[in-house]
């Protein structure tokens, strides 16, 4: 068709098709949704047994504790839910077909889109659970939402490519958390700090440096994934 503008509209159409296919499969089995929702609920309930009043506590460490627990819930729920995106393609033997019919970049972008959507749902749920069960007061909701969005972007970028790597390993799921954790530790450390600022309400100016690092991290991770995905997909 239009040869002067190659691939790019077709790429997004293909990526969108991959995303829609994955959403449809997800809605049929609800594997990732179930895993993530149940993990989030379990964590929040378990933590709230003893730490429920932490949100209204005047303890100086309360805010740090809440920020850490929030990200623990998000991280492990994401590890549970997002690990199977590519493994499923291997198990159902749909890899070859997908590889023939779709450019690799479109596969990556489609899966990334689905993971972003799932993470957005997860983060909303975890936040609601923490607000309800732990009496968390968010002093700066705007900053809080931005932190979770940027942090979630980085989390999705890294987990998507790791999921692709893990799907090619013979161990499959077992390695997922082990591989993802070291890559995500810088992101998690900074995300916890900025979340702490948002919960305590110490101001945008304190959070700006951290937010910039989060954004840079998400960007670097996504660009590297775009470059390395094709090699992973074709091995």
């Amino acid at each position, binding site marked *: 068709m239009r040869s002067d503008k190659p691939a790019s509209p077709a790429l997004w159409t293909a990526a969108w098709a991959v995303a829609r296919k994955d959403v449809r499969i997800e809605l049929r089995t609800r594997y990732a949704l179930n895993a993530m929702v149940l993990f989030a609920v379990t964590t929040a309930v378990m933590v709230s047994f003893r730490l429920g009043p932490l949100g209204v506590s005047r303890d100086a460490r309360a805010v740090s504790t809440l920020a850490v627990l929030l990200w623990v819930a998000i991280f492990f729920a994401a590890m549970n839910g997002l690990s199977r995106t590519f493994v499923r393609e291997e198990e159902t033997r749909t890899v070859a077909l997908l590889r023939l019919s779709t450019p690799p970049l479109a596969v990556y972008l489609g899966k990334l889109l689905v993971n972003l959507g799932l993470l957005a749902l997860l983060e909303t749920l975890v936040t609601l659970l923490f607000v309800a069960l732990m009496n968390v007061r968010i002093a700066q909701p705007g900053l809080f939402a931005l932190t979770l969005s940027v942090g979630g972007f980085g989390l999705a970028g890294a987990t998507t490519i790791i999921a692709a790597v893990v799907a090619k390993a013979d161990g499959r799921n077992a390695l997922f958390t082990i591989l993802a954790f070291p890559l995500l530790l810088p992101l998690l450390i900074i995300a916890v700090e900025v979340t702490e600022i948002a919960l305590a309400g110490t101001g945008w100016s304190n959070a700006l440096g951290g937010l910039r690092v989060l954004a840079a991290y998400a960007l670097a991770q996504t660009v590297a994934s775009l470059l390395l995905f094709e*090699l992973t997909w074709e091995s």
Partner: protein
Amino acid sequence: MTSALKLSTGLWLAVVTAAMFLWVPAHEGLGNVGRIVIVHVPTGWLTSVAFLVSAIYSALYLRRGRAVDDAKALAAAELGLIFSVLATVTGAIFARVVWGTFWNWDPRETAIAVLMLIYAAYFALRSSIEDVTRQRRLGAIYALLAFITVPFLIFVIPRITDSTLHPNCAILNTPNCEGLTLAEGGRVIGQVSDFRLELKAVEQVGSITVTTVEVRNPDGTFATLRPSFDSATGRPVAIERVPDSLRELQIKQLSGAPGSQTIELALANVGNVGLLTESRTLITFFASLLGFSALFVWLWSLRAGLLSMHEELQAVG
């Protein structure tokens, strides 16, 4: 040629070790434990170098697909793990003696812990794959993915998190930052760990409060220090080093009107202990760096050669 290199590296490192204990003088504040820097810092640096080498050869492998490049990347990663263990253990000993704790999540400790986790994950990934080509390719991809997180660790985290071993007492209350509260016209003498502090005078210069504090060292000597605090910015202005110790005295907080102020003083551990300012220590340090680098190069080529040989043997039979 290689055996000459091997022998001279061994001799060189033996001389460095002897010099480290016999020639280098004990650090005036740290005592004998200061010597550990001669092993600790080069191994720490080489951990990062090994990681860089591993990432470069991983990229080369992905580009050219030659098994030799992968062998070099793997060998560098293995050495990186060994050196990171050495750096961590020597660092932990140092931290225990000087700061009173083996591990403290100082930014550099965080960075090396993540580096070790990355190496461990890299080996776990490789060992989980049976197909050799796939093992190499996924290993290389993971090494590169891990590599882009490293600048964030090395350059970003120390600037963002509050370093706990180099405490700013205005922000942190850690075991390294002990304090007491004295007041004009109230309690003027107090004890912080082994130091006795006596508030002698308080002067006001604009928004800056300058205090005169007499410090009695554990060995019985006295020193007079003048830490100051700016109430306009809420931060200490002058932070004074207690002579012959690794402590610094600063004002953490001020309250009350001039004339009857309550002063919260803090004694914190000194961050930069100036280990390498002594010339013999510096020379031995660079000799050690050279020796460990040679050791690294030798072990790296040896291991990469072995891995390639293993590959050829398998191909033959």
